[in-house]
């Protein structure tokens, strides 16, 4: 599927801000199921843009604006050719919990089993995860059950959480947005020993009445390690196995590793207004 993305982030500061430095993770990743034809990031006030690749191999652009400014505009334009990661006729069942426990797993999995900034393991989370897993012996089946559990029992509501809400809070309050659902799912998976990473990106809502949740801004979901099947994307916000309507920007341990736009500035009058727009079109 050829998808075109326009992602616009604009900050308005109450008073002039200065010495603003920012990091952007807005470049779609090149993966087996995703080919990037275009990715252009532009920043106003116009300034020099530079990049490096982080520990998770995400492309990070960065810039600084030393002078006074009262608004900051970041635009990202991409065209991505996606293909189905899994043949959806044969879902990646067949990798068992005992295989996961005994067999060697790739080194890249280990960071995604540990606690991270927003995702921590507690006895309560473990207890709940074990209940969700039930009799399942299959990793994908368990992952799907966790996704289904969150989708069915949590309330999708913006404004109830912030960018800094932890997985534990989400699991207790059972409410939040895609970021929170992804954190909660990551926590449940890790509690059961399933390597789980947090993914940021976009999706194209192909439903007739645009009924999917989270398409108005950048989206977040989870990838679990599925043995031979590799990393399998699961979207607890929409109860969907990730397919070719999804575009991956970055992955990491949690939101902290992949925030599309993150930065600091001085001044600004103590508050800023943020406007975000994401538009995904099929070409």
């Amino acid at each position, binding site marked *: 599927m050829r998808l075109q993305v326009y992602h616009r982030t604009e900050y308005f500061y109450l008073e002039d801000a200065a010495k603003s430095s920012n990091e952007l993770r807005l470049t779609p990743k090149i993966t087996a199921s995703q080919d990037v034809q275009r990715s252009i990031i532009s920043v*106003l006030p116009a300034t020099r843009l530079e990049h490096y690749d982080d520990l998770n191999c995400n492309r990070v652009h960065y810039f600084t604006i030393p002078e006074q400014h009262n608004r900051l505009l970041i635009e990202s*334009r991409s065209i991505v050719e996606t293909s189905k990661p899994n043949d959806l006729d044969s879902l990646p069942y067949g990798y068992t919990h005992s295989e996961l426990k005994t067999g060697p797993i790739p080194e890249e999995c280990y960071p995604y089993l540990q606690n991270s900034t927003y995702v921590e393991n507690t006895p309560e989370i473990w207890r709940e995860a074990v209940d969700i897993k039930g009799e399942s012996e299959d990793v994908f089946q368990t992952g799907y059950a966790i996704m289904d559990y969150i989708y069915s029992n949590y309330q999708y509501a913006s404004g109830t959480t912030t960018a800094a809400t932890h997985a534990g809070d989400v699991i207790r309050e059972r409410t939040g947005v895609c970021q929170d659902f992804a954190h909660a799912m990551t926590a449940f998976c890790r509690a059961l020993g399933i390597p789980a990473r947090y993914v940021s990106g976009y999706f194209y809502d192909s439903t007739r009445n645009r009924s999917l949740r989270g398409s108005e801004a950048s989206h977040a979901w989870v990838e679990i390690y599925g043995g031979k099947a590799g990393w399998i994307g699961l979207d607890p916000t929409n109860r969907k196995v990730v397919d070719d309507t999804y575009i991956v920007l970055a992955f990491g341990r949690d939101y902290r590793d992949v925030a599309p736009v993150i930065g600091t500035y001085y001044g600004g009058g103590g508050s800023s207004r943020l406007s975000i727009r994401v538009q995904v079109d099929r070409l």
Partner: protein
Amino acid sequence: MFSRYELGHFFDEMYRREDGGAFEHYKLLENRFGELDAQALEAKQLLVNEGFLEEGITFTVYGDEKGTERIFPFDLIPRIIPHAEWQQIEEGLTQRIIALNLFLNDVYHEGRIIRDGIVPEDVVRGAAHYRPEMQGVKVSKDNYIQICGTDLIRDDSGRYLVLEDNARCPSGVSYVLENREAMKRAFPQLYSNYRVRPVDNYPDILLDTLQHLSQRAGHAPVCVLLTPGVYNSAYFEHTFLARKMGIEIVEGRDLIVLDSYVYMRTTQGLVQVDVIYRRIDDDFLDPLTFRKDSLLGVSGLMDAYLKGNVALANAVGTGLADDKVIYAYVPEMIRYYLDQEPVLESVPTYLAWRDTDRAYILDHLEELVVKSANESGGYGMLMGPTSTKSERAAFAENIRAEPRNFIAQPVVSLSRHPTICENTSIEGRHIDLRPFILYGEKIEIIPGGLTRVALNKGSLIVNSSQGGGSKDTWVLHS
């Protein structure tokens, strides 16, 4: 028809140099034209020309005593661009227009690219089309160039190169639309056998682009096209576009500025104007700010513009972006603002204001094309290899006198395309390509653009004012 076609030592759009066979995407065309004899071809050409004359699709040549009104010669053999090639062009142009807009934003505000030593300050501030009036002015949607025509050529290996950007009032798009209509009439079957991407939505996208600029909230944007009038070389195009978009075409005298707002005189009284698609250069916009002798502009327009009460497309001051010295820095701009390598390469350029470059230019005038930094339309140019001694001497003198105003480039042997010439013989003629880029809420590039062809044998100058013609350009679906 193609049996006596000579390839020459150039990249040919239709035939491979290795074995002389037609490229895959030209095979259908080769077969179709193969069926035609000279008479049939002539008949088709006549039909098309009559159509153009009837519709008044003409342009004006300045400084020619034979009369000024001409049809733009049209060649029946279309140029065909495969999907993958077009995709690369599209990527390169998108990247380029974003970088140029950021550059204008930057130099009319903080000027970081100057401070960081990427583009020299005197190159910017010394450009003929740099507008100090625009320093620190926020333009509508932070967007300077809404409509850009970027000229591309192909070198002898078939590589696309950017020749220049036209970021002021690029013209020619009406021919793109009319040429397409003509081809559909002349070769309906061939046209539908190829899966050609349509171009006829250009006026709709242009209108969206203009309306997007309106700064009056809660009111349907009123857009007008401002023309210098019937004597302008592109007047046909002005009327054509205004009609297709369904907006008023106005001259300076139809507009009036009251309390820093722009109004159009109509039979129902004054109507406030939000966006002006001006097909008139900065210099003539407002006699109060720019040329005092201009009768074409509107007094007080700049005042309304600077207060944000009316938007202009393109913005004032975009001539800086198509200055031919600035052109040499565009690849650096792309690296600086976008942190990317340019997708489309540029033609190597020597800048006469650099001492070493100037010495080289003066020593190699015979091999180089010398261009004046701010002229367009093929005026003010020296084609080294075909120039006379006295022409070269005159240019050398000008270059020494005004180094900032000249650049030189090696002669790129433009690609050739089979073209119908005298006695309906088919010969190779040099071509270029001007795609049109619209930058509104989205960036849209009309598939193809205007392919111009230098009809005079051996000529590399494709401008309509200098013996150029045009072809329809077919960009294919995948």
